[in-house]
């Protein structure tokens, strides 16, 4: 296999500013709320791609497919027979205290039993070369559109890089997504539901709608009548929607089932869904499977549902809920990373090594009084990737969000969102914490 040499994408690097300018013009932004105020941030693109060779990616692929299949089995089980709880694999508390568990979804069977149609699985590569799963995102993982548009622009800026190297074309994401949507279509058109342009991922909503040939809608354009979801057309007619890729969270989805104060939901959507008249991507209630506390149990799920050994490892994780783990966590708090299971987007993540003795003491008290609320993990010394900073190449921490799509079969998109921290001392790469992104090149054999 030919090595990828830097000169093959020097054009891209030389054009980094132009690419970033184009991204800015296309509105590739990331919105965040800080102190109650909405701010749109440019999501900085770094032109040096992360390169993963074919063999390594094949391993990751197998591991991800296995993991997502087990998670889908788990979700079906939890909302039906609950065998994994009855068999004592997962303590009941972890399911029913989780804010992601929605009792309103009990007994609902989504079309073809798929709950997580689009899974965003976050991984990191350790310095030993081993890949570890950091987090599963099974609700509404965002990010696929960023490497997609970056690839489009890089191909224009640096066509030679793609002519000379065997890189798997990642522009099939829209086709994969389309097939995934069609597999659970209950009869009608495809629609992507956005809360509107003030949402952090609005660029992505519009981009994916355009590229999958779905209509981009807000909730006030939709209504449920006769247990069917309809789109109001400009001429006053109505068109039936067969599958809804919603980009709003569960709690806001239907004000007659969940939060009554929701203004961005569709009344009686859940009745249409329960009756099998519309597919919802991803299924409501998935949060019970990507809860930071449930993460600990995913390797056990793989063994339980599939009878297989997990191919990809979890980061070593401790649950203070268990007495042995609690003692270990308290004794080693100053070198562990502690995560609050209720928070997302890099919030509620603290490193023991950064904390003063007083703060460590407070955290210990909190863990002892609310052990279910936290998980603790060993800090993985993960691989640094080169990024361009003012013309210089510097090394920064980076992770990878891989996208797994579950339709007739489960498939992994041969690309992914590589996020890096711009702060040399930080391990937190979330875009909401000011990081940037790279394209991810998977080499073909």
């Amino acid at each position, binding site marked *: 296999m030919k090595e990828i040499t830097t000169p093959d994408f020097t054009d891209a690097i030389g054009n980094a500013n132009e690419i970033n300018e184009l991204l800015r013009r296309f509105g590739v932004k990331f919105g965040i709320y800080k102190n109650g105020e909405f701010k749109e941030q440019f999501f900085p693109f770094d032109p040096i791609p992360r390169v993963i060779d074919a063999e390594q990616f094949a391993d990751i692929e197998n591991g991800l497919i296995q993991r997502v299949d087990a998670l889908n089995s788990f979700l079906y089980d939890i909302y039906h027979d*609950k065998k994994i*709880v009855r068999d004592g694999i997962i303590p*009941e508390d972890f*399911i*029913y*205290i989780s804010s992601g*568990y929605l*009792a*309103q*979804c*009990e*007994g*609902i069977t989504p079309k073809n039993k798929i709950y997580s149609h689009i899974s965003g699985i976050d991984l990191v590569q350790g310095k030993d070369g081993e890949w570890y799963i950091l987090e599963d995102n099974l609700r509404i993982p965002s990010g696929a559109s960023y490497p997609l548009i970056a690839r489009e622009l890089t191909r224009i800026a640096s066509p030679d890089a793609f002519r000379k190297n065997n890189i798997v074309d990642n522009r099939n994401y829209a086709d994969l997504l389309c097939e995934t949507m069609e597999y659970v279509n209950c009869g009608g058109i495809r629609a992507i539901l956005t809360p509107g342009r003030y949402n952090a991922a609005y660029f992505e909503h519009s981009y994916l709608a355009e590229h999958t040939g779905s209509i981009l809608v807000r909730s006030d354009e939709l*209504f*449920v*009548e*006769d*247990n069917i979801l309809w789109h109001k057309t400009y001429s006053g007619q109505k068109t039936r929607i067969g599958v809804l890729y919603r980009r709003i969270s569960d709690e806001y989805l239907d*004000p*007659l*089932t969940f939060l*009554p104060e929701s203004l961005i939901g569709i*009344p*009686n959507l859940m*009745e249409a869904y*329960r*009756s099998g008249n519309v597919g919802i991507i991803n299924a409501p209630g998935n949060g019970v499977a990507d809860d930071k506390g449930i993460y600990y149990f995913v390797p056990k799920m793989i063994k339980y549902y599939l009878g297989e050994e997990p191919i990809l490892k979890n980061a070593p994780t401790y649950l203070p809920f268990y007495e042995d783990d609690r003692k270990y966590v308290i004794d080693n708090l100053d070198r562990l990373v502690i995560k609050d299971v209720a928070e997302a987007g890099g919030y509620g993540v603290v490193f023991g090594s950064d904390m003063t003795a007083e703060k460590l003491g407070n955290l210990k008290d909190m863990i002892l009084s609310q052990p279910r609320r936290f998980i603790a993990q060993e800090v993985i010394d993960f691989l640094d990737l080169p990024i361009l900073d003012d013309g210089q190449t510097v090394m920064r921490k980076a992770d990878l969000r891989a996208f797994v799509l579950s339709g007739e079969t489960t498939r992994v998109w041969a690309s992914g969102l590589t996020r890096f921290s711009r702060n040399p001392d930080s391990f937190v790469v979330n875009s909401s914490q000011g990081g940037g992104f790279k394209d991810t090149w998977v080499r073909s054999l």
Partner: protein
Amino acid sequence: MKRIYFYFSTKLTFDDYVHEHSFALRVIPPETRTQHIVSCELSISPITAVNQTVDAFGNKVTAGYIKGDHRFLDFEIKGTAETDCTRHRTDHLPCYLYQSGFTKPSDGLKALYEQAAAELHTDNITDRVAHFSEVLSEKFTYRKNVTTAHTTAAEAFAAGAGVCQDFSHIMLSLLRMNGIPCRYIAGLAFCDGETHSWIEYFEDGCWKGFDPANNCLVNEDYLVLSQGRDFGDCAIDRGVMFGSYTRQLQLVRSVMKAS
């Protein structure tokens, strides 16, 4: 077994015309082991097509959509049922053991629980339920217009008084702290001009009814309309509508008598 006649009506009147009105009603009493529905007729005005589904908690949901302008929504049920409190329901969900949106205890409720639990000298679930209700009826007064439909157990307890819904929520909170699975019931009862609320607790694989507002066991004078973790799962009517002015006036009337 007792044969009863039931009637329940709600009139919603809006201050101005509303449109694109979606609603979900939970008013049709379910057929269960403890109540046989001999007949039940639902009428809705303005006349509109509706769909029936069954939700996660086993409630019959009547969903509808009124597109055009209207100033009211009236619905009523009437029918005959046979109730039998010698039999019990068995449909269970594990979530009934855990605190839910309306029942999360405050420090005040926790203190009440600790105090009540310290006086407990029995493992028998029915006796424990009776004890908690006894304590509750000493600390909490029945009074209207203190709380609203959105008041939580913690808020109601802090206010010191409330209606049947508040009694049920506080009771659920106490029982769940004690590890007893229990659920909220919305229904109709004798001697009540509106809807009533009580609770059910799970013992020996079946549900038993208890009325905390009246501090007594449920008998054949009670008709279940819906059940869930708390009021949030059982609201008789929920609706979303558009209009410049959607304030509404609600009139409710119910009748239950021996048939």
